[in-house]
């Protein structure tokens, strides 16, 4: 039997102009969601280690709910479910950003908690013994060290969230996968187009990895 199958490079390169419009959407949803998720993560991560139980448990519930359910279900819930509750539609971009925000927020909470808890007890004790208040100890001693340790897992979460946005084609946002699907519907070159889509995700995630590695190196230069 003869192999008739062939990879059509021309079709692959030809798809680029049709895919590129998806890139800003992917970036907007990823980074918009991650920026909000970062603040959610700091807030809930710190609540999670509060000495007050009634501050801790909302954070625990939040993390368990959003880490324990699939992000696809979360975005469908936000896009199709919430409007029934609110009585007004939510646009797909907002729904996508919100889904990344609450989902990454749950994971980032855990990263923040882990980062802060990883700082040796002696750091806090030395700070307090010098007369620093608890909040000064946190601000000047604990947090700067914790943040440095959080950079690698935060980068990891960033990459995961960027890839998660590919699921949002189901709600019709014009991100990368969605642009690919639209283009394939007219050309039937699924192999070449999805290959290019994958390549574009790689370019985005590699770029982020390299930037983070530089940030990390700069952070460590001081030590």
């Amino acid at each position, binding site marked *: 039997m003869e192999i008739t199958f062939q990879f059509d490079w021309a079709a692959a390169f030809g798809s680029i102009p049709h895919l590129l419009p998806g890139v800003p959407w992917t970036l907007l949803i990823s980074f918009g969601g991650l920026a909000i998720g970062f603040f959610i993560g700091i807030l809930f991560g710190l609540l999670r280690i509060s000495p007050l139980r009634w501050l801790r448990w909302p954070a625990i519930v939040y993390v368990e709910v959003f880490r324990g359910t699939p992000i696809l279900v979360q975005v469908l819930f936000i896009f199709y479910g919430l409007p029934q509750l609110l009585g007004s539609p939510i646009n797909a971009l907002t729904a996508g950003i919100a889904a990344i925000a609450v989902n990454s927020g749950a994971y980032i909470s855990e990263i923040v908690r882990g980062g802060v808890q990883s700082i*040796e007890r*002696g*750091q806090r*004790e*030395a*700070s*307090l*013994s*010098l*007369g*620093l*208040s608890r909040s*000064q100890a946190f601000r*000047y*001693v604990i947090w*700067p*060290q914790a943040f*440095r340790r959080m950079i690698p897992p935060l980068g990891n979460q960033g990459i995961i969230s960027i890839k998660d946005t590919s699921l949002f084609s189901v709600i019709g946002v014009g991100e990368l996968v969605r642009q690919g699907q639209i283009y394939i519907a007219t050309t039937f070159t699924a192999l070449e187009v999805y290959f290019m889509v994958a390549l574009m995700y790689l370019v985005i995630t590699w770029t982020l990895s390299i930037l983070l590695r530089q940030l990390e190196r700069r952070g460590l230069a*001081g*030590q």
Partner: protein
Amino acid sequence: MNDDATQPIVRMQALNKHFGDLHVLKDIDLEIVPGEVVVVIGASGSGKSTLIRCINGLEEYQLGKLEVDGSQLLPFGKSNRALQRIRTEVGMVFQQFNLFPHLSVVENITLAPMKVRGWSRADALETANRLLERVGITDQAHKYPAQLSGGQQQRVALARALAMEPRLMLFDEPTSALDPEMIGEVLDAMRELAKEGMTMVIVTHEMGFAREVADRVIFIHQGEITEQGEPESLFDNPQHERTQSFLSRVLTH
């Protein structure tokens, strides 16, 4: 502030401390007067660290009375304003140095004077440089802790505590984490400090040093002060059997 030289700077009365079911400090009575150098000795787990950590409120106690530099420290860590005040007046040096690894040597030293005492950067820097010279660390001000030897780190930690101009210094086994060849340089710096009249409470296993600098040695056994006295009498003529057996164990090493 309590400037009356005859008033104790630390006054513990029937102090009791539990870790859960474990009764770690039992009815401790202890008074320390300004200028006094007190060395605390005892076996591992006897409660030495817990005792001195109560003085600056790093550990809370449950029963008894504790007054430091004229301020009451309440039981159960009931954080009162006094706690913060006491901590600015009481310095501490830890076994593991606990320098801030993300800050340079000089930043380690200037942080608290600037943030707690409200000193200007220039004043804090001047003090830092003076103290670094005093503990024998020169030309290292802009290095980071990880770039220093253990002995240097501990001397920086001492300078950091002294920068707050404390009235009392606590030391919890300051040389136990050091390589043997670096112990001397830290003890020298402490010896200097004692000579200058600093009030010091020192937990250490360095018996030679204790004998030399201590005004009083306290032996703790299972959370109780079993025996105390001038170093000569305690080391050469211990009254209690427990003190004798402890000393015979550590002095033969």
